[in-house]
């Protein structure tokens, strides 16, 4: 059962060949046996999961099943779960138990899905290798000592290792797409505002977007059906009709116009990676799509702009972790300043502190115009680049990362090298458009991802394009040994 997709499991549950309790037990057993190798979970909620599975079986018996009733899955540990500790990968929240659900969490609960636990992540979603987690690094199931990518490294590794068929994730600068690519699974970052951010612990509010990781595009579509929609609790979520994302998966891609941003096929990309990506695009041509080169002229400025805007927002978003109301508090503070400084010095890890410092600097009097305002101007130029490109083409395709999964410890000593991991993914967040990562081949036995970027609210088209690709390829079915 652990190799089956969410769609398959949904059918199995519906036909009664297996109950949710049995299914849940099987996956919990796998987590218990296998996750020591990967460390993809921070918290496993066995008791709660079995109780939820039992409730799901009863729900089904009563004739009230949804496609998700009884399906086991996991949440990235950034989504608040009522009564279950939510750490965001940080010592600061090591013992934080929220008294409320994130809207995403509530939606899955409402759909009857069974959450098995909370997946590991870079601390406060800051990282591209999952090495900044307070709860230890995650290992990529495709290679010993290889990173799974980040920040949603736990979700991607857990899905790749078949510990869960699906997991929620978030993407601020590539945090869904890059780990999905490095772990050989399928991930979707929706349009900014498509999925509520309520209860999703903020890193950079104007960039953060909740999304999906599963093995197939179809499962991503099923997840998005549960997650997408306007939320009155999030004023930046968008009030716009949510289509059934599974309904258009089988549309042909014949006639689809694919743009290849020339800036994303640069010398930053290894020839072996480029070959895999171009092979994937050739599959689309075989399916009747046409390909043309386009330009995102300001894409080269994306990383610089991102590393001003994201840390600036983070520096304010993380001010609430002050040791006063919840979370970590230092021992025996001698006065208020000592409480603040020691709590934050001891509670945050290196990368988080680095970004708070960078953001605080960028917003400081005398620097604000040169950094923050300038970065916002660049951001508008980048948005304009995408808007122009989508006047010419239906989707953009590119690599997700410059190289496949790297070895743990290789890049975390030099932050800038690590930041360059996101060179192909970050502009998407600055523009707010949706994008996917789809398994598209291997280099040296390590997975390679194809990035498909769409216009605002074109998730259905992206999922359709990915699904059609997965009908003629089997990269997404490969299982790590």
């Amino acid at each position, binding site marked *: 059962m652990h190799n089956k997709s969410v769609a398959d499991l949904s059918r199995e549950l519906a036909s009664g060949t297996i109950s949710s309790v049995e299914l849940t037990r099987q996956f919990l057993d796998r987590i218990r046996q296998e996750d020591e190798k990967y460390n993809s979970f921070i918290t496993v909620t066995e008791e709660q999961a079995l109780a939820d599975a039992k409730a799901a079986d009863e729900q089904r018996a009563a004739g009230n099943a949804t496609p998700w009733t009884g399906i086991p899955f996991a949440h990235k540990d950034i*989504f*608040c779960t009522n009564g279950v500790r*939510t750490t*965001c990968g940080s010592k600061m*929240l090591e013992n*934080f138990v*929220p*008294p*409320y659900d*994130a809207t995403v969490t509530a939606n899955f609960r409402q759909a009857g899905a069974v959450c098995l636990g909370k997946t590991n992540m870079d601390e406060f979603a800051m990282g591209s290798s999952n090495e900044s987690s307070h709860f230890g690094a995650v290992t990529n199931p495709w290679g010993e000592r290889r990173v799974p990518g980040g920040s949603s490294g736990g979700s991607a590794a857990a899905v790749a290792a078949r510990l869960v068929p699906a997991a929620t994730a978030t993407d601020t600068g590539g945090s869904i797409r890059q780990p999905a690519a490095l772990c050989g699974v399928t991930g979707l970052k929706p349009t900014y505002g498509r999925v509520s*951010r*309520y*209860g*999703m*612990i*903020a890193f*950079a*509010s*104007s960039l953060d977007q909740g999304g999906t990781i599963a093995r197939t595009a179809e499962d991503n579509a099923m997840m998005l059906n549960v997650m997408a929609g306007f939320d*009155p*609790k*999030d*004023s*930046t979520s968008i009030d716009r009709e949510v289509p059934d994302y599974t309904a258009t998966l089988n549309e042909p891609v014949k006639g689809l116009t694919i743009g290849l941003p020339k800036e994303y096929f640069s010398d930053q990309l290894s020839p072996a990676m480029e070959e895999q990506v171009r092979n994937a695009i050739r599959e689309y041509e075989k399916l009747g799509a046409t390909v043309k080169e386009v330009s995102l002229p300001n894409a080269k400025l994306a990383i610089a702009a991102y590393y001003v805007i994201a840390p*600036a*927002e983070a*520096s*304010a978003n*993380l*001010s*609430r972790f*002050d040791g*006063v*109301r*919840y979370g970590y508090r230092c021992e025996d503070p001698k006065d*208020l300043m000592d409480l*603040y400084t020691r709590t934050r010095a001891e509670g945050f890890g290196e990368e988080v502190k680095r970004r708070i410092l960078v953001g*605080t600097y960028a*917003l*400081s*009097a005398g620097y*604000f115009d040169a950094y*923050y305002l300038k970065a916002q101007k660049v951001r508008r130029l980048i948005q304009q680049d995408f808007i122009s490109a989508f006047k010419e083409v239906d989707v953009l395709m590119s690599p997700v990362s410059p190289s496949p999964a790297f070895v743990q410890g290789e890049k975390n000593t030099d932050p800038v090298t690590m930041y360059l991991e996101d060179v192909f993914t970050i502009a998407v967040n600055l523009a707010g458009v949706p994008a996917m990562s789809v398994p598209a081949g291997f280099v040296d036995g390590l997975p390679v991802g194809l990035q498909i970027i769409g216009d605002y609210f074109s998730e259905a088209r992206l999922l359709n394009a990915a699904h059609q690709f997965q009908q003629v390829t089997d990269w997404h079915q490969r299982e790590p040994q």
Partner: protein
Amino acid sequence: MQWDIVIGLEIHVQLATRTKIFSGSSTAYGAEPNTQANAVDLAMPGTLPVPNENAFRYAVMFGLAVNAEIERRSVFERKNYFYPDLPKGYQTTQLERPIVGPGFVDIDLPNGETKRVRIHHAHLEEDAGKSLHEDFHGMTGVDLNRAGTPLIEVVTEPDMNNADEAVAFARKLHGIVTSLGICDGDMSQGSMRFDVNISLKPKGSDTLGTRTETKNLNSFRFMEQAIAHEVERQMDILEDGGEIVQETRLYNGDRDESRSMRTKEEANDYRYFPCPDLLPVVLDEAFIEEARNSLPELPDARKARFQEQYGLNDYDAGLLAGDSKLATFFEETVTHGKDAKLSANWLLGEFSARLNAEERSVADSPISGEQLGALVTRIADNTVSSAGAKKVFEALWTGENDDVDAIIDAKGLKQVSDTGELEKMVDEVLAGMPDQVAQYQNEEDPKKRKKMLGGFMGPLMKASKGQGNPKLFNEILQKKLGG
């Protein structure tokens, strides 16, 4: 040396919305600590602000009432600083694009002149919680009930030149926001708090001096005292050849002392930037028109109407119209009391004095406008004398009885106004005081005569057991004694 005083005000006005500016928690005052703070107010991880439309409506009403431009697209920003009663580590406020742009308010000065005070802008923001330093054994308690209460901060131009003007402006603003119903105006509960910026410059100079800011004054009296105190402090320094340090000061009204809170050098770099959790607030014309149409009568219009409709003088009309609760009370009194001038006198006299003495607001008055009106009626129709009326007022106030006529009866305060009966009493009393009558009639000086006339009143009142109408006694006396 002669000095010009330059004063500008910043006024925090708590908006009387039922719920907070970015959460659904109640804003009611006085609940147990931290019982009115939900996950958003506590800044729990992942929570997000949801704007309260009524706060925008109130801010727009305020803007329209002070003749200001309304910003069609205002932006919330984060003002970053750490403090235990500031749960998010930043205050959500407005800086670059406040919702209310430049406007003005005209104030009446004690000398009868009118002065225009310009408003620089007013912005929407959230209030912080409260840090409680007592009762925690050397530690600090934090109460977040107030955190997230909507405020507008009104910032004036430095257009006031003495404490009288500043207080007149403060009172006027109080009258405006309470008339609009956007603030309960209760200063003892912090519903309105004043920061005063003061500087001195040599008389006639065009260059402003260094200013200080005195924060959180929560009564008109403290404001007046704080200004006097600060002007004197600055004057002493300047006249001794010293320099004013730009700083924020705290004034202790009970001791009439102030101390420095922080200097400019110690000021925070607040690192303002637009709040990414909130979209710009876009107000359409319909929303603004709706707010305009919902504006109630404001103090200036009400004052004009009181003069016109009730024949009140400028001063009385201004006082009564300036405070919306007093104005309402006045109109209730007039409805039942007929005589507007007499009603105004009683409200501004006995009634206000009593409220002040007991530190009560109009809303807490133990007597109603209807009761006071009934009393005014009985004064006007000569049923009670003004001395008697004070006794009735006392009985109403203390709750001895709530019916004016019943009190008059029970206390035997009804005046005798039957002229025949009164003439008889006058004749009898004059007959018993022949020396005084002769003395009176021989006196040439009208002033002295008037005084001597008073000498007959005592025996007359005694003869009438206090119930004779003094006015009529007076008239009859003058007639009988020959002018």
